[in-house]
């Protein structure tokens, strides 16, 4: 099942009982942010929300929490909505290996239906709203931002599709936060070294797969579009921008074309971040918008951020686990699964077979030295292969029964972490922790006589099946 746009995915969600329409009139603030916070509080099976009656708008529509539950994540992948998380992970990891899948190029897209190049006013087209009280304005934080490497403009793989927070500062003016280590940070540095503005296209309200891949830690030369093709199992459809060489997701609801102004910074933020804390105001770059394209009655899709659980726990979940898993596997084929679902992998749980005492600690250290681990993996918990790292009850069992605090904790001092981690001091530097929660093995002295595990009675799997059938009768 391939979704070419957000609308067809919303139809699927509704068909599966995973979309709630809110038809009563709501205020942009504080209703929309509050509702998005509330739906995240309902648990990991929660629906997406679609609002169509927003005070001050005739036809304004806002979609929230589109990826924000395990059923929605499974449906994004075209899987049954009750697919267990570990199975979603393994299937995503399998498809990831099919990269690259060449794209499908077309000449026109639904968003060409409406075009504005003069007297642009973002507020006329998008029902923009403040997400959290102390945000410095209305933010667009779930849009695909597309840019190219100006030193190598024809390199398709170096074209980047990423999600970056965008503060709406005026009718045709945005602030952007390009982290230097992210691909767009590299593109901006190159543009500024050349003394040129950086052209960008911003696609708002896309199909669910490209939004997932745009939030994935791909390498600099990997194409998000060719990876989206791998994940959806069919070539990804793109259309060339009218005023630049940028390629845009065909199904986008709204597309903004503009450029980041080179050599200029302006106050941006604070903003309630995915860490659940505000990141303070900083002088950051500005985007001047030059054209807007949009479908009839466009849908504004946005993302609520705050303390977990939020939609971030799903949209940067499996897509963060999988590259980490593949990189770990290269060094340690014993690795079974990786759960880096929380706060983009600031904490990671790895399940692995172990060959001998101390093995798990080496796996933990490798996680911290992967490209993603340099900015994340502040705490790595390593569990046995028979522990499902997505089953937190099992993980807590491993922590509580396998860990001897005098033997199983390894602290790496003054390591690197992303500067948004509120506990880092100075921002970007932190001690890191490996917790070895695997069963001790020789030559560790505990390994010789460690208390044997209670194996499940022989027919447990058979009985699971019987009981499920009885329950579903």
């Amino acid at each position, binding site marked *: 099942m391939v979704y070419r746009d957000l609308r067809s995915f919303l139809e699927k969600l509704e068909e599966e009982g995973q979309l709630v329409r809110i038809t009563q009139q709501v205020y942009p603030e504080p209703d929309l942010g509050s509702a998005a916070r509330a739906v995240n509080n309902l648990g990991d099976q929660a629906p997406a929300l679609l609002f169509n009656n927003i005070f*001050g708008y005739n036809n304004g529509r806002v979609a929230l929490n589109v990826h924000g539950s395990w059923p929605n994540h499974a449906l994004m992948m075209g899987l049954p909505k009750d697919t267990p998380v570990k199975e979603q992970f393994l299937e995503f990891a399998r498809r990831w290996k099919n990269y690259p899948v060449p794209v499908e190029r077309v000449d026109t897209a639904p968003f060409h239906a409406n075009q504005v190049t003069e007297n642009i006013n973002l507020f006329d087209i998008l029902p923009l709203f403040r997400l959290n009280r102390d945000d410095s304005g209305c933010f667009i934080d779930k849009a695909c931002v597309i840019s190219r490497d100006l030193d190598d403009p024809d390199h398709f793989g170096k074209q980047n599709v990423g999600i970056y927070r965008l503060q709406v500062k005026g009718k045709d003016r945005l602030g952007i936060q390009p982290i230097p280590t992210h691909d767009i940070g590299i593109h901006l540095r190159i543009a500024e*070294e050349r003394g040129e503005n950086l052209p960008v296209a911003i696609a708002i309200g896309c199909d669910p797969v490209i939004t997932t891949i745009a939030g994935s830690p791909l390498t600099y030369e990997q194409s998000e579009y060719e990876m989206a093709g791998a994940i959806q199992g069919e070539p990804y459809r793109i259309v060339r921008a009218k005023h630049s060489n940028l390629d845009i997701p065909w199904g986008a609801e709204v597309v903004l074309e503009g450029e980041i102004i080179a050599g200029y910074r302006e*106050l941006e933020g604070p903003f309630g971040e995915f860490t659940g804390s505000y990141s303070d105001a900083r002088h950051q770059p500005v985007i001047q918008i030059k054209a807007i394209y949009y479908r009839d009655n466009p849908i504004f899709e946005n993302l609520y951020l705050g303390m977990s659980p939020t939609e971030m726990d799903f949209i940067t979940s499996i897509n963060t686990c999988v590259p980490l898993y593949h990189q770990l596997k290269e060094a340690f084929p014993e690795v079974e699964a990786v759960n880096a679902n929380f706060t983009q992998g600031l904490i990671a749980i790895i399940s692995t077979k172990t060959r001998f005492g101390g093995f798990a600690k080496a796996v933990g250290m490798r996680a911290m030295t992967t490209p993603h681990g340099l900015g994340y993996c502040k705490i790595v918990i390593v569990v046995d292969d028979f522990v499902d790292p997505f089953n937190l009850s099992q993980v807590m069992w491993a922590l509580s029964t396998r860990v001897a605090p005098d033997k199983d904790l390894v602290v790496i001092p003054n390591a690197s972490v992303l500067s948004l981690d509120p506990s880092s001091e100075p921002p970007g530097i932190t001690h890191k922790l490996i917790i070895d929660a695997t069963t001790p093995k020789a030559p560790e002295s505990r390994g010789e006589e460690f208390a044997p595990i209670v194996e499940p009675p022989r027919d447990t799997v058979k009985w699971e099946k019987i009981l499920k059938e009885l329950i579903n009768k």
Partner: protein
Amino acid sequence: MTTCPRCDSNETKVLCESPVKGCWIMYSCPVCTFTWRSTEPEAITNPEMYNPRFKVDPSDMGKYQIHPPIAQKRKS
């Protein structure tokens, strides 16, 4: 005249009005880039009730980090 709730500047301007006329007005502050809507709670719109933790002093803008640093132009 409207005062910026965040930096107390009086240079604020109307950013836009609601597409359905008369529902709300968006304001913006060119000094600190803060924006707010006339219908928001007082903790946002009233300078005296704005969260002191995030007030901005226009005479002390240099204390905020430049992020990312502006790359030096290459020599041609």
